[in-house]
């Protein structure tokens, strides 16, 4: 079994929104598009997005830190949005675990969006069908692309490599190793949706220096030359 997914490293995400814009660009131009915008240059612009970067502040001033939080479909292993769909338009691909919507079958009843606790499904205001992150299914399955480009647009765009992509069921994949060794966690585990996407936590790199590391215990300056001089001629006074 293959379960493709993203692993997002909150430790290095700088909140630049490059994944948001590259996602919109790729998907509005391709199979999933257009992702229409309404009033794009006017008051109250709105539009369809598969991916957003949100910002949270943790703690009270001055002990605060900023967490940039990219949010897209988590491609749950037990997706609650799929069984509620009355038409079967919402489905999870058997071969790679990506959760998709068949735009030709969707009736736009919005019921699947109610059944997603993460709020990652959006009704397209002009096409009137439900849309969501496809993990760039048209790109990752395109055998004509070189292997290195067969990745979601957001992953390729991320300047800090905060987005890892791969098969989370393969224990030796980059994403599985990252989840296992760097504390990867799922969102809202209390619902039992088993999200495939994981997040890597913020980590602080701290130096631990003890007192005896600052004060060198065997410093020769303190060890040697214990002579107390009281004005007599020393070796420095000798002229050669």
């Amino acid at each position, binding site marked *: 079994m293959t379960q493709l997914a993203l692993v997002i490293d909150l430790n290095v995400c700088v909140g630049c*929104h490059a994944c*948001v814009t590259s996602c919109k660009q790729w998907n509005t131009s391709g199979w999933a598009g257009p992702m229409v915008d309404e*009033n794009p240059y006017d008051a*109250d*612009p*709105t*539009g369809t*997005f598969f991916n*957003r*970067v*949100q*910002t*949270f*502040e*943790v*703690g*009270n001033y001055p002990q605060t830190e*900023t*967490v940039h*939080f990219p*949010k897209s479909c988590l491609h749950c292993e037990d997706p*609650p949005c799929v*069984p*509620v*769909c*009355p*038409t*079967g*338009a919402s489905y999870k691909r058997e071969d790679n675990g990506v959760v998709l919507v068949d735009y030709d*079958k*969707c*009736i*736009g*009843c*919005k*019921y699947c*969006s*109610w*059944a*997603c*606790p*993460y*709020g990652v*499904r*959006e*009704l397209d*205001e002009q*096409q*009137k*069908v439900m849309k969501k992150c496809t993990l760039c299914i048209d790109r990752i399955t395109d055998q004509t692309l070189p292997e290195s480009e067969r990745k979601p647009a957001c992953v390729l765009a991320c300047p800090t490599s905060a987005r890892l992509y791969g098969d989370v069921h393969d224990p030796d994949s980059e994403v599985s190793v990252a989840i296992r060794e760097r504390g990867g*966690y*799922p*969102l*809202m*585990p*209390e*619902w039992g949706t088993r999200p495939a996407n994981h*997040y890597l*936590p*913020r980590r602080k790199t701290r130096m631990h220096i003890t007192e005896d590391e600052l004060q060198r215990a065997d410093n020769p300056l303190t060890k040697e030359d214990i002579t107390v001089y009281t004005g007599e001629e020393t070796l420095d006074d000798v002229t050669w």
Partner: protein
Amino acid sequence: MHPAFSVIFLTTLIGAAQGLFLALFTGQLYASIRLIEPQTDVFYAVGSALALGLLIAGLGASFFHLGRPERAWRAATRWRTSWLSREVIVLPMMMAVVFFYGLFHWLEWTDPFVVLGDDMLAIDATFVIGAVGTLVAFALYVCTAMIYASVKFLEEWHSPYTVGNFIFLGAGSGFMLAAAYSAYIGNHLVGFYGTWAVILTLLGLATRGATLVRNVGLRHKSNLQTAIGVRHRTIEQKSQGFTGSSFNTREFFHHKSPEFLRLVRLAFLVLVFPVPILLIALAYVTQSATLPIIAFVAQYLGLLAERWYFFAEARHPQNLYYQSVA
């Protein structure tokens, strides 16, 4: 959640229609065993037409909820997993049963197949259709309610009370409509239907009241800590990623003040429960022909408010991600 009027009208109209059908068949059952005076077939036929009209109106309202109504037929395919799909199947069944129940009465195809007891219970075609229709009506109540009650993320809805509310409030308004109908045409069943309407409304008060009490003390499973996975007591959203609106900010919020919500709750608690009960009791005493109609209209308006509040009070966990624009 955003209260959509398409769904508010759908659930209240078909709820009343199913209740009216149940009332008509209950009347037929009581009349056939001579507990109440028998009615003409026209009474049942016109009543069925009224119920069918409400069902059609409800179905029509539901189409406004769909982005692609021309594909609505596809919604019958996933009945194995989706309560919405089940409702899409059972609703036309209900309409067919009501249609044939009315048609058989209208054509007076009521020769009994078999007479049970000492000429006590005559089983004719309308009796069989009515019995089947009773099952279908309850199945439809359950399907409609389970659409909401089965979504575990909406914890305000995810309870057996929701099913009770849809059954009792729908049936209550249907029996109230039957009482109004009887009062309008001036037969003697106002007291019979009115009594049932009061009983069902009181049962509805019990389940709806229990829902309100439950939801006041409801502690949501998710919070901002589990939403973003950071273990800290103080987390504040600084940006939701965009300054405009989106589907997420429209579909899951009612955008009304808490005062407005309290007002709607008060309105439905008054209009659905005490007002119709008092009016129907008054109608019983004064033999008024108009008070039962006013009672039904008041209760129906109250049910619109009740359904609006039902949506507005449900808080979706996705809202945790949309607490601050920028």
